[in-house]
C-alpha cells in the first residue's frame, strides 16, 4: 500500500507473516487518508484561478496528490482554495461556502490578493480573506506559480498529518458573532492596515 510516515521517522508496524493485519496509530491512518484525498473546492475568482487551472491541467497534474476530483459543491469538499481576489461583494458568498463545507475542512489562500488584498488597497477589496474565514496555508505570489501552489498543498498535507482526531478544538466551527464578524473589529482594522509604500499612494494629485 505504500504507507509512509512522512518525515516523522516512525515506521509502520507490519506483523510479519500475516498479510491480513497491519498495526498503526489511528491518528496516522486517518490523517494519511485525509491528507491524500483532499477534495478541493475551487473558489477561483480572478487571475490566480487561471494558474489554479494550469495546476489542475496536464503539466502540473494535481491528480498526483489525490486532488483531481474538483468538488464544485461545498458539501463534498475538504479544502477551500480561494484563488484570486475577494471583493466585499463576494465576502458573504465565500463565508456561506465555508459554512456549508463539512468538517474537517481547510482553507488555502492562494495569491497576494486573497492573503492581503494585494495591489488592491481600495474601497472594493477585502484585505485578506482571513478576516472572513480562517486560513490554514497562505501561498504568496501574484499569481503564485503552479509549483508554489503545489508546495502550499504539500504544506497543508504536512499540517494535516500532524493533527489529532481527538483534538476537538481543531474542528470547532467558527461562528460569526452578533456584529457578523469572525474577528474583533480592532483585529480586522489592524490586519487591514496599509503597509509599505502604499500609505503614500492615497494622494490623488
Amino acid at each position, binding site marked *: 500500500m505504500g504507507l509512509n510516515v512522512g518525515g516523522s521517522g516512525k515506521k509502520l508496524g507490519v506483523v510479519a507473516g500475516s498479510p491480513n493485519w497491519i498495526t498503526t496509530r489511528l491518528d496516522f491512518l486517518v490523517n494519511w487518508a485525509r491528507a491524500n484525498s483532499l477534495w478541493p473546492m475551487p473558489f477561483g475568482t*480572478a487571475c490566480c484561478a487561471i494558474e489554479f487551472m*494550469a495546476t489542475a491541467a496536464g*503539466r502540473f497534474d494535481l491528480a498526483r496528490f489525490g486532488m483531481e476530483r474538483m468538488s464544485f459543491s461545498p458539501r463534498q469538499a475538504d479544502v477551500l482554495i480561494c484563488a484570486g481576489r475577494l471583493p466585499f461583494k463576494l465576502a*458573504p*458568498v465565500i463565508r456561506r461556502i465555508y459554512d456549508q463545507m463539512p468538517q474537517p475542512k481547510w482553507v488555502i489562500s492562494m495569491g497576494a490578493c486573497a492573503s492581503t488584498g494585494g495591489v488592491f488597497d481600495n474601497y472594493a477589496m477585502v484585505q485578506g480573506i482571513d478576516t472572513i474565514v480562517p486560513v490554514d496555508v497562505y501561498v504568496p505570489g501574484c499569481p503564485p506559480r503552479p509549483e508554489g501552489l503545489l508546495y502550499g498543498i504539500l504544506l497543508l498535507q504536512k499540517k494535516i498529518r500532524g493533527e489529532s482526531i481527538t483534538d476537538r478544538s481543531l474542528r470547532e466551527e467558527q461562528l460569526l458573532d452578533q456584529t457578523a464578524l469572525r474577528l474583533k473589529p480592532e483585529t480586522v482594522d489592524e490586519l487591514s492596515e496599509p503597509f509599505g509604500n502604499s500609505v503614500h499612494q492615497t494622494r490623488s494629485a
Partner: protein
Amino acid sequence: MGMNPTVQALRERFGPRIGRALVSCGDTIVYVDREAVREILRWLKETPGQQYNYLVDITAVEYRDPERPLEVVYELFSLDRKVPLRVKVELPKDQPLEVDSVVPIWQGANWLEREVYDMFGITFRGHPDLRRILMWETYSEGHPLRKDFPLRGRFSRSEQVRQALGASPEAHYSKEELSIADLYHDLPADMRERLVRQGVLEAGSRIGSRTVELTVGESGAALAPAWGGAGTAAAVAEEPDFGGDHMLVNIGPQHPATHGVLRLVVELDGEVVVRCIPHIGYLHSGFEKLGEYRHYNQIIPLTDRTDYLSPMANNVGFAMAVEKLMGIEITERCKVLRVIACEMSRIISHLIWMGTTAIDIGAFTPFLWTFYERERIYNLQEAWTGARLTTSLTRVGGMMADIPDGFVEGLREFCRTFPKTLAEVDRVLTRNGIWCARTQGLGALTAEEAINHSLSGPMLRASGVPYDVRKDRPYLDYETYDFEIPVGEHGDVYDRYLVRFEELRQSTRILEQALDRLPDGPINVDDPRVILPPKSAAMNDMEAMIFHFKQVMEGVKPPVGEAYFPIENGKGELGNYLVSDGTAKPVRWRIRPPSFINLSALPKMAQGHLLADLIAINASVDIVMGEVDR
C-alpha cells in the same frame, strides 16, 4: 488631424444646442446641450452621411478641480465610414446630475449607463432599469469614482467587512426579479422575511400584481443559509407554494460553468429560459479608481490583472493610449514586438475559451490539449517577461525588455507545430454531432442586433459584421500584415466557435510574418521624458541622473488632453480612455471593457432557449470577470 466635419453639420442642424468643439490628440470632441443629447445622438446615428451607428462607450469624467462640471462622454463610431466622434455633456455640480438615457437608441447603453450611475451617481432619465451594477444594491458608501470618495472608502475596514458580511446574498435579488411572475410569493418564508428586514422590500408595497404581505417579527434571529442551505424551522414550517407556472433559478456566483464569479438569475418555464438577469460586480476591484492614484507606468501592472487571459495585449493597449496622449511615435522594432505580444495573447485567450467551453459542453479532452499549448506560450512569455501571467511587458514609449535569445526560434517552432493541435481539436469538435447539436442555432443575434448591443470582437463578427479594430482603425501597422477577418453567418454559438477557431490560424500567420520582418534597432524611443536612461549613464552622467530621478520620483507627465485608443484583443474592442490634467497621474482611466458589453447581450440571447443551452450561450460570450467587473 483637423476637426471632424460632422461638427459643422451638427451646428447647422442644431444651432446653439451645440457647444464648443475641440480636437485633442486627433480625437474630435463636441459638447452638446444636456437636454438635447438624445435627439442629437439619434440624429447622428440615423442621418445619412453621418451614420454613427456604433456606440463604443459611455462613461463619465470628474475633474480634480471641484469647480468643473462632471462630463458624460459618448464615444461613437461609424462602422460604414470608419470615423469616430466623441460627444460630451456637461453636468454642473450645483444642479441635479441628470441626463436623458440613450437606451431607446442603443440597447448597448443599458449596462454602460448603469455603471455610470453606480460609479458617479448620475441619473439617466428614462433608463428601463437604473440600479447599481458593480457595487451591491444596498451599498451605502457612495459613488466610488467621485473625487470626494476616498480610495479606501468612507468606512473603516471592520465596518466594511461587517456590512459586507451582514448583507445576505439574497438581499441582492433585485426588485425586478422578485416581480417575476410573482415569484416573491414562491420564495421560502425566511428569505421573504429577510428581504423585508433588510429593507429590500417594504411590507405593503406592491410587487407584480400582488401586495407584499408580511409580518416581520422583531426576532433578529441569526440569518439562516438559504441557498440550498439547511432547512430552517421557518422554511420547513411553511413550504413554498410551487403552484405558479414559472420558477426562479439562481446560478452562481460560485458555479463551475459561469466562467468566474458571474451570477445569473433565471426565470424558467419548465426548462425554457423566459428571462435571464445577469448580476455582475462580484469581482469589482476598483481598477479605474486605483489608476487615478498611480503614475502612468505604474498602471501597467494593473492592466495585467484586468483581462488576465491576455495580459500582454492589455499592456500594449494601455501604453499605446498614453503614447497617443503624449504624441510619441514608437520604434519599428517595438511595433513588431507589440504585434507579437498581441497575437500571442489572442492565441492564449482563445485557447482558454476553447478549452473551458468544451468542458461546459461536455468534452474534456480539448481542455488538456489547449492547456498544453498555453503552457508552451507561457514558456515563451516567461522567457520574455519573467512572468507567466502578470507580464507588465510594455512601458510608455517602449518595452520593458527585448526578446531573449532563442525566443524567435521558440516562437517559430510554436507556429510550426501549433496548427497540428488545432487540427486535432478541429477533428474532434467541428463536425462532431454532439458539438453541433449543442451549439448550432443557439443564442443567435442578427447583425443589427449585434451592432445595437455594441458587441465587438468575435461576437460581432460571428453575426456577420466584419468590424475588426486591426483592419478598421489600424494601429501597429496591422494594415501591412496579410491576414483575413473571419466572419460568421448565423451569429450563433457555433459560428462564434468557428470565428475564434479561424482567428487562431490567422494569428499564427501574423506571428510568422512578424517574425520574418522583425527589424533590428532600439525597442525604446529616444526620449528622456519617458524612458529611463541606462543604469550606467545614470550613475556617471549628471544629466542622465536627473532624468532618472525625475522619471522615478515624478513619473511620466502627458500634456493636458484626452485620448481614446482602441485595440482588438481576444474579447473584442479593448479601449483605453485617458484624461490628463498635465500631472503624472491620470484624471480618469477608463477601460472600455469588451466582455462587459458583450455580456450585456446575454439576456437577449438566452431568451427562449433551454437552461442547459444557457450554459453554452454564456460560454460563447467569452467573458473574463476581471474585465467585466474591473
